[in-house]
């Protein structure tokens, strides 16, 4: 049996691994299952069958508001935000050849946080659209500064990580400055934002998130081939004829857009960008063409599950999804550090 199908047309070359297809379908099925359960749970429980009927438009209309207006968009937003963060992390890990890189380690998330917190605290009356705009702007600015400062006749991955850490700490300090000077009610809102939550996300949020993903995800898949070359090290990649700096810059930009758009929608949900790529690597191996889509879906699944747990574990109190991902991600992270000890 053939393990992979290769598609070639002009400059594009794409290898489709059959195992990847299987894993993707499996993950999507699990995600759908979790979503349906998640939509049934809550203050007003609904049987999974009724949820399914309502979503497919076969229902009695009794649950249209709860499912269609409240719970369905929230689940979609969780899925896509998780996916965006995961893909961003997968790209960064390949780019830096470091299994611990993630948007929340090298300062991208911190930039988005600073932008969002500045709007929340300094301009609480600003229109809703200002928040995601500031978040994406902050992420882009942070990444640009990092990239520029890490440039020294080229960007070595180590420098990228270390400089990113430095930028992260400066941005963190500025965010803290705002947090200590704001009114405590606004600050508490800002803290929820920093922790990340999908509470009350609507179709409108989804509509603002999707355009970014529609551009960035296919672009990442098209560049997967170059990301593979970069993983071998700069010298080998150059020897293979890859334009190392251009590809690295492009991939970094895509990663920032994904993380920025995700954080702009739901706040800085931690550890998804770190965990999902590792899970994907376990499932389909390190080739980026398969890793990218699988990591995306795995990230979506993680955030939908985290949202479900956050809503139900301490009901009626709702714990932000970001607290759940941190609680699960932290031990996982330690284990990762332990496992990558020979890297």
């Amino acid at each position: 049996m053939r393990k992979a199908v290769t598609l070639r047309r002009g400059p594009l070359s794409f290898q489709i691994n059959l195992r990847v297809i299987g894993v993707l379908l499996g993950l999507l099925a699990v995600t759908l299952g979790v979503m349906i359960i998640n939509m049934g749970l809550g203050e007003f429980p609904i049987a999974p069958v009724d949820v399914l009927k309502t979503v497919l438009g076969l229902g009695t209309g009794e649950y249209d508001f709860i499912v269609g207006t409240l719970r369905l968009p929230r689940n979609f937003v969780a899925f896509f935000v998780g996916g965006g963060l995961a893909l961003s992390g997968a790209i960064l890990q390949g780019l830096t050849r470091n299994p611990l890189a993630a948007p929340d380690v090298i300062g991208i998330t911190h930039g988005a946080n600073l932008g969002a917190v500045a709007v929340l605290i300094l301009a609480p009356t600003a229109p809703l659209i200002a928040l995601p705009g500031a978040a994406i702007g902050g992420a882009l600015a942070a990444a640009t500064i990092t990239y520029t400062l890490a440039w020294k006749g080229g960007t070595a991955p180590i420098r990228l990580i270390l400089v990113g850490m430095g930028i992260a700490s400066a941005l963190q300090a500025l965010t803290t400055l705002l947090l200590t000077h704001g009114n405590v009610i606004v600050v508490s809102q800002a803290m929820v934002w920093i922790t990340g939550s999908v509470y009350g996300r609507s179709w409108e949020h989804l509509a603002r998130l999707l355009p970014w993903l529609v551009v960035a995800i296919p672009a990442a898949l098209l560049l997967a081939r170059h990301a593979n070359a970069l993983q071998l090290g700069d010298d080998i990649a150059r020897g293979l004829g890859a334009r190392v700096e251009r590809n690295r810059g492009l991939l970094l930009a895509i990663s920032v857009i994904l993380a920025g758009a995700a954080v702009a929608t739901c706040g800085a949900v931690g550890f998804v960008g770190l965990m999902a790529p590792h899970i994907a690597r376990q499932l389909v191996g390190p080739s980026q063409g398969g890793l990218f889509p699988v990591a995306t879906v795995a990230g979506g699944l993680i955030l939908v599950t985290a949202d479900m747990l956050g809503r139900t574990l301490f009901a009626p109190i709702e714990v932000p999804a970001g607290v759940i991902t941190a609680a699960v991600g932290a031990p996982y992270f330690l284990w990762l550090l332990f496992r990558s000890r020979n890297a």
Partner: protein
Amino acid sequence: MSTIRARTAPAAALMLGVLLLLACAAFSIAYGLMDIRLSTIYEALTGFNASPEHYIVRTVRLPRALIAATVGAALAVAGAIMQALTRNPLAAPGVLGINAGASLAVVAAMFLLNTASLSVYAWFAFLGAALAAVLVYSLGSLGRGGMTPLKLTVAGAALTALFSSITQGLMVLNERTLDEMRFWMAGSVAGRDMTLFLQVLPFLGAGLLGAFVMGKQITTLSLGEDVARGLGQRTGWIKAGAALIVVLLAGSAVAVAGPISFIGLAVPHIARKIVGTDYRWILPLSAVLGGILLLLADIGARAVLRPQEVAVGIMTALLGAPFFIALARQGVKKT
């Protein structure tokens, strides 16, 4: 002759540093919303007459200057020892997650025990600092090739991310914790309780003293573990002792002032520029320079947004980021 000169230069630097430290402390006491003359400060210390100026000096300004100088010294010495021990120019309590671990322990104690007693915090700060130190060291030295600067730094960043996200989670869950802790989390030496400081002082003093006594051993260790062992040093014990000192110093600094970065990272580099590679001189000079730097940062924190104050931890973090980036650009060896 040459040995005498080799000792007079660092000794002169140290003396000069002490004088500068005193000058900064005096300025820190004098400067504020209400400027106080130096002669008044002297009177307040020698013959207290309960006038408003004297009252301000004794209850507000003097404790603040004392705490800033001591915390700065503790952080700088902790950083110097960490850099010698790990042979990593980027090592510091702030970078390797020690501060973040201590903060998490304090916030968790506040959240779980529901206590406002500051002396309880101190113990939790020690505990958190110790746990973080053990974790970062073992994670950074796992695997083939043992500890490398890069592995250690990344492990530190990873642990910092981990600790601070848990801290954030706790603060989101409890608004009271958030309101009380957000100022502490920023790192500040303003309005700190003198009793807490006096409670922590024995540990801090023991740490500093221990560091100065171990200067010779730490110098040997900074040459590398193999060399130190070849010179007959029992590296295991020395390392354990040095680690204990770091935990004492960083833990008490965090307990008093909250997490403050940059001092531990930058000061040892400056001290090494001045007196070379001998830790018998680097450590005391780091202590003095650390005190000066935190006093200056605190004065700056009062000056930039006058009449409002910025937390001094924010000032040091903003100063420290460019320094860290410059060091990172200079290059960290992979092995």
